């Protein structure tokens, strides 16, 4: 009996409780967080050079100091965002994470989980399983991330990638698409950070894995 118990202990020690967030997800998540912040803050400064709407961003929350500096930051951080994003997409598909974690998304599930969340009845006992609202938001933000990169590329290379510009309906439309995606990402970020603070163990899982 005792030897069996020992071997069981050994087995437990050899395979520690499976991480809620695997290491690659955590690394890619925080690199993305940094890249996104650099892109958004430098993007605001670039926006200020020729605003689409009747407002500008305060210089206290922009990066780069002036248009030229902001462009240098934007076109440097874009590599970080793009390479990191491609690694995330490749691993997300290859490991089956997207399929296992984000699917299926059903309208019924989203409605009932939204109601539960708003009445503070949504369970956070098992962080390894996303609820329907999380599934919808995380899938949605991946799509927004892809669209913001594609609209950004079409503004960066409107001649070389003119087919991409046409896909968005022209250069001017691509600017609005790019801005809208930024607004959606910022909105996501506000909710995402607020919820991580409300459920601190989810933040811990994204830092140390468990």
């Amino acid at each position, binding site marked *: 009996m005792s030897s069996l118990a020992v071997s069981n202990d050994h087995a437990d020690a050899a395979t520690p409780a499976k991480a809620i967030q695997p290491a690659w997800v955590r690394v890619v998540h925080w690199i993305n967080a940094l890249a996104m912040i650099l892109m958004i803050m430098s993007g605001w400064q*670039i*926006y200020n*050079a*020729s605003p689409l709407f009747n407002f500008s961003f305060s210089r206290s929350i*922009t*990066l*780069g*100091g*002036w*248009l*030229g*500096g902001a*462009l*240098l*930051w934007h*076109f*440097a951080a874009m*590599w970080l965002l793009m390479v990191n994003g491609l690694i995330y997409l490749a691993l997300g598909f290859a490991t089956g994470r997207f399929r296992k974690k984000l699917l299926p998304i059903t309208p019924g599930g989203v409605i009932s989980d939204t109601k539960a969340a708003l009445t503070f009845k949504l369970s956070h006992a098992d962080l390894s399983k996303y609820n329907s609202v999380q599934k919808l938001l995380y899938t949605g933000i991946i799509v927004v991330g892809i669209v913001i990169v594609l609209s950004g590329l079409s*503004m960066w*290379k*409107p*001649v*070389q990638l*003119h087919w991409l*510009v046409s896909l968005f309906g022209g*250069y*001017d439309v691509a*600017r609005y698409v790019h801005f809208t995606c930024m607004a959606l990402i910022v909105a996501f970020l506000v909710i995402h950070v607020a919820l991580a603070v409300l459920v601190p163990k989810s933040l811990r899982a994204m830092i140390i894995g468990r």
Partner: protein
Amino acid sequence: MGRLRKLLIPGVDKKLLVRDAVKVMPDPTRRRFLTTGASLGALTLLTGCDVLDSSSAEEMLKKVSKFNDAVQSWMFNPNALAPTFPESMVTKPFPFNAYYDLDDAPDIDGKDWKLEVRGLVDNKKSWTIDELYQLPQVKQVTRHICVEGWSAIGSWTGTPLRDFLKLIGADTRAKYVWFQCADKDGYNSPLDMESALHPQTQMTFKFADQILPRAYGYPMKIRVPTKLGFKNPKYVISMEVTNDYKGGYWEDQGYNSFSGS
């Protein structure tokens, strides 16, 4: 990040600034200053700025910008044409844009003006405006995209630059065509040879079928629809075919040098 702008002041090269500062130091100080590896980076640290503001961040950004030049050059397809538009879509009024007011724009007398040709060319003769007007011209209606983000469609008529380069016997294996302009503070800009030879790159003499008005660069601008607006110099007074990177008004301040569309 105000410092990044301060470090990129037009006309002030920080390396030269440090070199000049070192020159006025007494000898022993100068030696110590140099051996301790002083740089403007050290100076900015002394003035107390955060890590992102330091010149090492600026150096990193400049390196990435050089890398982006190479990527864009690699992406550049010499046969890819900028989309063209019907003349009815020309933006009216087409915006005037510069780092000065229209009142301060060069007011050039076409009779006195000559285009100076220098560098790696067989025929270095200067060209009068009437001589240039004799060259075959073509019209293009293309989108001008400003580095600031706005864009406007314009109608430009002139001589393809590649035809002119051929005419003057330019060495088209050279790396750049460098333009100097009559703008105050001396506007200039380098154009990589691949872009200079692009079929839509044009020595422009007319806007919307009228002689190029002062606002748009009379008597001659270089229209490059595969580049951002600031790489489309106005009030051009000379062109030089060269292998040397001679910098440019905005390029020296930090705008990406290739800035291709």
